[in-house]
């Protein structure tokens, strides 16, 4: 044991340089970078697999896009010409590589229907869907964590029972149904929020927000409910831990222990759930956008299916897949940052 006299001011300042601890501290950084690298590689491989699948969609879709493009009464010659023009007659791998070359350079082809670049169509719709998704995620996190905390601190009491019932309903109900009920109640009956449509934030921020409330809540319901359950179970488990008693024995207030200690300890699993739910939510937005007639990516996707507009469909699916890959990657990183044991 080192006598305390060794730690007088100047040696103490010099000491860290000779100690093994600073060296030990470099290792976590290297480890962090290494795990980051392997995750990045995995994400890239996943992206490759996704592009193959998306490209393969064309083979799975019933009907010939060239036939539907040529319209009624087209001659076999005109159909062949369209096919040639779209490059549909080349071998599949050639088509894939020329398509991939475009994808990497931001060129997703031209819409069969609108005759404009797909990337431009996507960019036009992206802010709409991102607004909706962000609104929903924020709403879900706010509700999930607040209601989860409430339930965890009042286990078995009324507040716990009410929020638990709400969450069970939230998880069990499909989001389009929630959307329709909200629509009937809040816009048709009580006329609080607009029923359908979308206003860009740049045009009118208030209208933008009002238009997002109902679809946002409908989209957030399941995610919020899942988060509430996760928060409730992990926070109430943490509150029974010895280290919470230690903090209370130091004189820390119940509120401080709850919002600092319990929340930080519960954060890693919560971040995982938020990440998963964010990915699920992107998929759910397709239906919700349709219910509220919101001109986002989801509506574009559905329209492109009915119009057999393959490049657009591929573009939407690819973009969504990219979002999911990015969300998963970000979740991994956040988990690592939040959890000191994983970091080392």
């Amino acid at each position: 044991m080192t006598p305390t006299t060794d730690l007088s001011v100047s040696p103490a300042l010099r000491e860290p340089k000779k100690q093994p601890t600073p060296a030990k501290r470099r290792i976590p950084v290297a480890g962090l970078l290494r795990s980051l690298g392997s995750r990045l590689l995995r994400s890239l491989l996943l992206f490759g697999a996704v592009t193959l699948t998306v490209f393969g969609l064309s083979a799975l879709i019933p009907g010939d896009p060239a036939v539907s493009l040529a319209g009624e009464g087209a001659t076999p010659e005109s159909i062949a010409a369209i096919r040639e023009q779209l490059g549909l007659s080349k071998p599949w791998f050639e088509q894939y590589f020329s398509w991939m070359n475009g994808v990497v350079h931001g060129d997703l082809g031209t819409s069969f229907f609108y005759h404009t670049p797909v990337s431009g169509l996507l960019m036009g719709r992206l802010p709409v869907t991102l607004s909706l998704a962000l609104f929903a995620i924020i709403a879900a996190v706010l509700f999930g964590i607040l209601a989860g905390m409430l339930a965890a601190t009042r286990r078995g009491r009324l507040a716990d029972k009410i929020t638990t019932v709400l969450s069970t309903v939230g998880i069990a109900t499909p989001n389009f149904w929630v959307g329709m009920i909200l629509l009937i109640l809040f816009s048709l009956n009580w006329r609080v929020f607009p029923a359908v449509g979308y206003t860009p934030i740049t045009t009118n921020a208030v209208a933008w927000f009002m238009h997002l409330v109902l679809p946002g809540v409908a989209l957030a319901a399941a995610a919020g409910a899942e988060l509430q359950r996760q928060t409730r179970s992990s926070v109430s488990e943490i509150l029974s831990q010895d280290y919470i008693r230690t903090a209370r024995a130091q004189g820390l207030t119940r509120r401080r222990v709850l919002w600092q200690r319990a929340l930080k300890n519960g954060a890693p699993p919560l971040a995982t759930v938020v990440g998963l739910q964010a990915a699920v939510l992107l998929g759910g937005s397709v239906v919700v956008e349709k219910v509220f007639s919101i001109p986002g990516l989801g509506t574009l996707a559905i329209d492109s299916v009915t119009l057999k507009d393959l490049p657009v469909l591929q573009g939407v699916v690819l973009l969504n897949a990219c979002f999911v890959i990015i969300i998963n990657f970000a979740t991994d990183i956040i988990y690592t940052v939040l959890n000191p044991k994983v970091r080392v």
Partner: protein
Amino acid sequence: MTDAKDALLSVENLRLEIDFNGAWTPVVDNVSFSVRPGETLGLVGESGSGKSVSAMSLMGFLGRQRGQRVSGTAMFQGRDLLRLTDRQLESMRGNDIAMVFQEPMTSLDPAFKVGHQIAAGIRVHQDVTAAQAKELAIEAMDKVRIPNARVRAESYPHEFSGGMRQRVLIAMAIANNPSMLIADEPTTALDVSVQAQILALLTEMKEDLGLAMIFITHNMGVVADVCDRLAVMYAGQIVEEGDVFETFAAPQHPYTNRLLAAMPSITSRRGSLEWIPGSPPRPTDFVTGCRFAPRCRHRLESCELPTTLLEISPGRSNRCLRGNTWMQENES
């Protein structure tokens, strides 16, 4: 029982009841003891005897929730701990009364650096900046002889060994210069060699800071090492209280006698360890008569009468209905 006047903490008739499916059951009952400034009281007994429960009631960790109720008085520096508001209690915890727990491995928050955790307790009670609190935390770590405290303050609990974690917890406990420390089996979870170090450290802190200490343990050897007086608990009651040396020399209650006999000793020539047949009753089975009687070899029919802790000489009390008359009987 010592004089309540000069006592730092004076507990009278502490009783904690828990609602077991609608039946209020006393878990701890009629517990009275006092601790003078600078004195160490050992609270001894088997698991489930109510020693930790008594301490937890004093700290307000038990008896304040639904399904629990506490009664009696616990005068500490002129205030009754059992009647403080939550806020008053919070301002005392860690400031006037600190606590060290049994499980160093799980008693530190895994998500925060240890320096931060010590500093958090300092900032609750002292008007200091974050940087000053950090310095005080490092000072406290130095005081409990954590080598290289300045660097170690930036480490997370999982980077410490069990013994070092217990040092961190002790640093946490002494950081605000409390006048009393409750140590709840602080060495039970540690290796024997580390146990001795932690005991030495606690004794040193107690002497340096003039701390009064309640030392909860089931280990009679540890009591002899660190305590001035001891209170032996059985089935939620104190059965004997007195000076450590006097009690070890001549235990007044048959249970204390059996406990001491069960201590392994190197000088003893007996081939096997002593043990007490049977097991302690559960709170739902507590009787008004002597609760140790079913396991006592000196039991008489009169042992079913209600018991009280009687002062038999200054500073010594005994709950045995037979006083010390059982001592004449042959140990068989």
